[in-house]
């Protein structure tokens, strides 16, 4: 019995090896980059891998949730892809603890990731001393975008430098009959607005106490209460049609000059670009207030599901190496609208906002992890439920504080 199984294994691995040599390091990659700009970006990754001698098998699944579910289902079903996309977050940490991912310590050591990767990213991809994912980009979900023509029409002389100036500008926009804040009332957009406000109003310490330490006491402290009050105040500046609106429809309001500001991730740049607008000319951008404002780090990674097949592991290592090379990083991120995970790259071809992002990332003190890196998806969901209720209803700050405490208690 034992012998037959061994024989079977031998036959199987021989067949696998034959198959592997036939397709030079075939790598099946699940990702959710399906829109025009995104697929152009992922093609850069595919081309780089092909150039390095591999064969790229594209497995694009529309929608981030669907793509992650597809990857999880295939891992659970025992037929995993070579690599799968996740956000730089805790989304895949359960998969690590289930022992279902290969580490890529070999590549990380060879490329010296410890030395040059930003700390928030390392914290997300390095678990128990092992690297389990390769980061490909940095998105900051907490940018402020504004229409220069709208601000001019409202008599706002310059970009707001503080939160007070920001609210003053909103007041002027309102008085001028414009929509002060372009907003899409979907719970994930309310969530982005909440944590941007917590970082910019409550400050870095309050932000970390809440998201990183899940500190129940900090919820009732002054910074959080001030944030919630500011969030509620912000609601006075959105238009009646905002509930249910898509983020890009909100961006379109800024593009057309009907609205003044939008708080949204740097993927919004794609919309401005598609409308032939240039940063610094028709629209402006800032990622926080003041020159030392914290810069929120989010983005995408690829994980490598467990396999003991040697060629597959080689393919995984090659993917990780290729994805982080300086040339691929610049080519990919220029098309994606994000910024590279390394700062030792040529930023001359990037737009104004991306250059500001690279500049901010050069100062480690300004880097700060986004909430999805610090909380489990489960807890993020619970907090989101509280925030969406608070934003849309007439709940008092006291009640919201109580609900938030319940959410982080877990």
């Amino acid at each position, binding site marked *: 019995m034992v012998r037959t199984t061994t024989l079977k294994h031998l036959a199987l691995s021989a067949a696998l090896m034959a198959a592997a040599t036939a397709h030079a390091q075939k790598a099946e990659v699940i990702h959710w980059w399906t829109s025009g700009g995104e697929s152009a970006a992922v093609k850069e990754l595919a081309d780089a891998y092909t150039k390095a001698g591999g064969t790229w098998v594209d497995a694009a699944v529309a929608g981030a*949730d*669907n793509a*992650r*579910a597809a990857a*999880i289902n295939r891992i*659970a079903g025992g037929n995993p892809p070579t690599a799968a996309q996740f956000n730089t977050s805790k*989304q895949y940490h*359960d*998969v690590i603890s*289930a022992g*279902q991912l290969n580490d890529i310590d070999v590549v990380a050591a060879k490329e010296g990731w410890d030395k040059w990767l930003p700390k928030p990213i390392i914290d997300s991809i390095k678990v128990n001393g092992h690297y389990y994912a390769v980061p490909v980009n940095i998105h900051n979900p907490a940018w402020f975008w504004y229409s220069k023509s709208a601000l001019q029409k409202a008599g706002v002389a310059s970009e707001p430098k503080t939160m007070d100036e920001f609210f003053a500008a909103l007041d002027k926009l309102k008085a001028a009959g414009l929509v002060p804040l372009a907003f899409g*009332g*979907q*719970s994930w957009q309310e969530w982005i607005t909440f944590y941007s406000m917590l970082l910019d109003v409550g400050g870095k310490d309050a932000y970390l106490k809440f998201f990183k330490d899940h500190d129940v006491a900090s919820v009732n402290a002054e910074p959080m209460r001030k944030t919630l009050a500011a969030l509620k105040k912000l609601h006075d500046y959105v*238009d*009646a*049609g*905002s*509930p*249910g609106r898509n983020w890009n429809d909100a961006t379109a309001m800024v593009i057309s000059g009907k609205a003044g500001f939008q708080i949204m991730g740097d993927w919004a740049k794609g919309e401005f670009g598609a409308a032939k607008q240039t940063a610094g000319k028709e629209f402006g951008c800032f990622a926080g207030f003041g020159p030392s404002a914290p810069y929120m780090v989010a983005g995408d990674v690829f994980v490598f599901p467990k396999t003991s097949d040697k060629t597959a592991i080689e393919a995984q290592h090659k993917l990780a190496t290729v994805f982080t090379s300086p040339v691929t990083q610049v080519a990919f991120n220029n098309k994606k609208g994000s910024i590279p995970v390394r700062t030792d790259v040529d930023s001359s071809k990037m737009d104004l906002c991306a250059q500001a992002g690279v500049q901010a990332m050069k100062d480690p003190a300004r880097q700060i992890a986004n909430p999805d890196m610090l909380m*489990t*998806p*489960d807890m*993020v*969901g619970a907090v989101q*439920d509280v925030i*969406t*209720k608070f*934003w*849309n*209803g007439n709940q008092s700050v006291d009640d919201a504080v109580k*609900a938030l405490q319940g959410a982080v208690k877990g």
Partner: protein
Amino acid sequence: MRVGTQPAARRRRAVAAQLALLPMAITVLGVYIGTVLWSVRISFSSSKIFPTNDFVGLAQYQRLFNTERWIVSLQHIVVFGVLFIAACLVLGFLLAVFLDQRVRGENALRTVFLYPYAMSFVATGLVWQWMLNPELGIQSTVRALGLPGFEFDWIVSQDKVIYTLVIAAVWQASGLVVAVLLAGLRGIDEALWNAARIDGVPRWRYTLSVVLPQLGPAFGTAFVLLAVGVVKVYDVVVAMTQGGPGNASEVPAKFIMDNLFTRANVGLASAASTVMLLTVLALLLPWWYGRSVQSRREARA
């Protein structure tokens, strides 16, 4: 039936029939009932992103009923369900009676009424969203036509958003009720009306007292189809409101999907699914029982 003749041949035929049914039986037992049982099993585990095999008792159920969003979802589905089913049945019945008057262009009208049901709600829901949006749709159009005081902003109102879902869902599903009830109406003997007419009974009275009682089974079928639609209502919410504003239009199916996929919470999602399954069974079992009692009585008569 000639009982007892050629028993071997009959048995052979029975075996053949059973063999032919076997794949279906295996599918039903393994795929449907098996997965249902497995979901119930998972609802007693601490499963997060992957299903696990541990046992945590009723912990997931406890958490479920301490989750405000779940409770709110249940309240919404009750309001939605009652209004949706009632409106569909009333509207569907009136339209079916109207079509039954041998109106001209009946075929075309029937297609028109049934068409919404044939289309994906992901597409039509988006159209409803635009029509109901106060800045784009009906409200702004009527205001532009010269009625500046006109207000119809239900979809952005926390208290009224659920009614917009009912409107859109009734628009979609009432055509199905028309089709089912029209088939029932056509099965009623024309001679009854002739007899009633001779007795001087007005048409409306005839419809209420003679036609309506005979439509019982057709109404039953329509009710079950609509009730199933209520339990699994998801696409209309996702397309029109995404559960918002806030949590004002959250429904159980959306809670389950969010926890299964986005929130990596398979255990909680399974517990919620199990609660939904039990609710459906609690509603359907009495109905099934009633039907079987009735058919047995008819068989005896």
